């Protein structure tokens, strides 16, 4: 029964990807287009390209920076978001400034960051933070603002201190929406990992992909894109495992009456 369920779930999860890959395979099989090489060629390139020393010299450093940047962004976004979400004055004061920075594209922002952070790993992590922080920040602000009034009144009436109100009420209550932001930030982080390596880089996954693109190694470039997608899937699976643990109450609450 349980096994069958798991089997069905796996089938459901795999059906679409399998179909899409098949479609891709067929569509490109005989194609002569230089920029759309056959999938078979891409997969061959994938093995050659990534199952090699490159994994250690390019992929791992990138993932390290990604993780550092992502975690930094989540912490910063939640911290700032809670502050901004809880205080109307602070929100009024900061929102336009934040919105201003939010609209600035990385190709313009990065040079400014380089002025302060140099061109090393720190700068790249900062670039990742500068992009990932927004979904977390915005969602945290909105989540904090949307807290149930009765719940915050309860906390006030029992005179919960600021710290425990933050821990036990604000962060947990805004949790579901923070999770939405953190989930958004995950794939943005991967994108910015690539972008950060377009500036002042000499190694990295993104750097390699851009190099392939510039040197017209198109199958290799595609294999890099596929790798990015796979990284995305892996990270989101890890994310969902964490989310499922932290938000178990929420899932229960939201499905309490639905399931049998």
């Amino acid at each position, binding site marked *: 029964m349980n096994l069958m369920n798991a089997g069905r779930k796996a089938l459901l999860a795999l059906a679409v990807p399998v179909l899409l890959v098949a479609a891709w395979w067929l569509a490109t099989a005989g194609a002569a287009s230089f920029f759309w090489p056959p999938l078979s060629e891409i997969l061959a390139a994938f093995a050659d390209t990534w199952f090699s020393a490159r994994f250690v010299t390019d992929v791992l450093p990138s993932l390290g920076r990604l993780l550092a940047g992502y975690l930094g962004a989540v912490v910063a976004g939640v911290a700032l978001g809670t502050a901004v979400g809880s205080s109307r004055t602070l929100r009024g004061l900061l929102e336009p400034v934040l919105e201003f920075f939010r609209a600035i594209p990385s190709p313009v922002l990065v*040079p400014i960051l380089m002025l302060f952070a140099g*061109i090393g790993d720190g700068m790249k992590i900062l670039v990742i933070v500068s992009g990932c922080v927004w979904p977390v920040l915005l969602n945290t602000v909105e989540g904090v603002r949307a807290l149930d009034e009765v719940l915050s009144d309860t906390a006030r009436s029992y005179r919960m201190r600021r710290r425990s109100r933050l821990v036990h009420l604000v962060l947990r209550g805004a949790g579901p929406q923070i999770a939405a932001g953190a989930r958004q930030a995950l794939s943005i982080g991967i994108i910015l990992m690539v972008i950060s390596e377009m500036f002042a880089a*000499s190694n990295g996954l993104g750097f390699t992909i851009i190099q392939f693109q510039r040197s017209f190694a198109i199958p290799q470039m595609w294999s890099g894109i596929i790798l990015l997608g796979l990284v995305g899937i892996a990270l989101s699976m890890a994310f969902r495992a964490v989310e499922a643990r932290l938000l178990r109450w929420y899932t229960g609450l939201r499905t309490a009456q639905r399931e049998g």
Partner: protein
Amino acid sequence: GGQSASPEPGSSASGELSPVKVSVIPILDVAPIYLGEQQGFFAAEGLKLEIVTAQGGAAIVPAVVSGQVDVGFSNFTSLILARSKGLPIKVITPGVASTGVAGQDFGGVVVKAGSPIKSAADLAGKRVAVNTLNNINDTTVRASIRAAGGDAKNVTFTELAFPDMLAALDKGNVDAVQVVEPFLATAVKNGDRVVASNYVDTAPSLAIAGYFTSQQTATGKADLIKRFTAAMLKSLRYATDNPDAVRQVLLKYTKIDAGLTGSLTLPTFPTKVDRASLETLAKLARQDGLVTSSPDLTELVP
């Protein structure tokens, strides 16, 4: 290239100009095409020039290959790379070349005034910024080091956009930067020191970039390309003859400070693709591992 006389502007005698779409990078190098347009060389060939700008090969090469634009502008190393991967492209006219005068070229390697680096040979073991890795600038800097007797193997190249280089140099993030105009003039104005002219060190008057089209366009629109070539050559010649006009036209399509244009070192605008330069670049590309085998240059430059 003989004078392709053009009294009758091709097929469009009615004044109806045939459009030709050209994708360029909005930098000093492409001043002749703007000049030529200004001077009416293209209209005289019955062409209505449509210039679109892009930031680099990532956008220009696919646009040319797919026929979305007719002609593109690119450096020769990129084109050698593309050709070696089998992209069907052809160079049709030259674009820019180095002046061939050491210390007075339009690009060079710059260090801070107080830097211990005195010559290209001293760059060994140092961090050098170039605008794109594994391309014309790092291969020529390596060539420059080798020419000066240094060890080109252990230079650490870092990729930085030209506009960001001087700041990085100032902050000490890198030891040297390879810049072109207008950043070279700015650097000199800042008191930085030119330690090598990498293009000059590579070959006497290194051809650097040119205009290219795709095989398909070259055969399918042979007449159009012929007329473009003619007008372009005229433009290059005009640019060579009128350096002041070049400085003037810069103000039109770039945002270079008007006070700076006078002090820019202009490149030369040759009218013949220098086969020897291309061979040199191809050799460097192979030597530095950009390509595994030299492409057939006769296919690239017929």
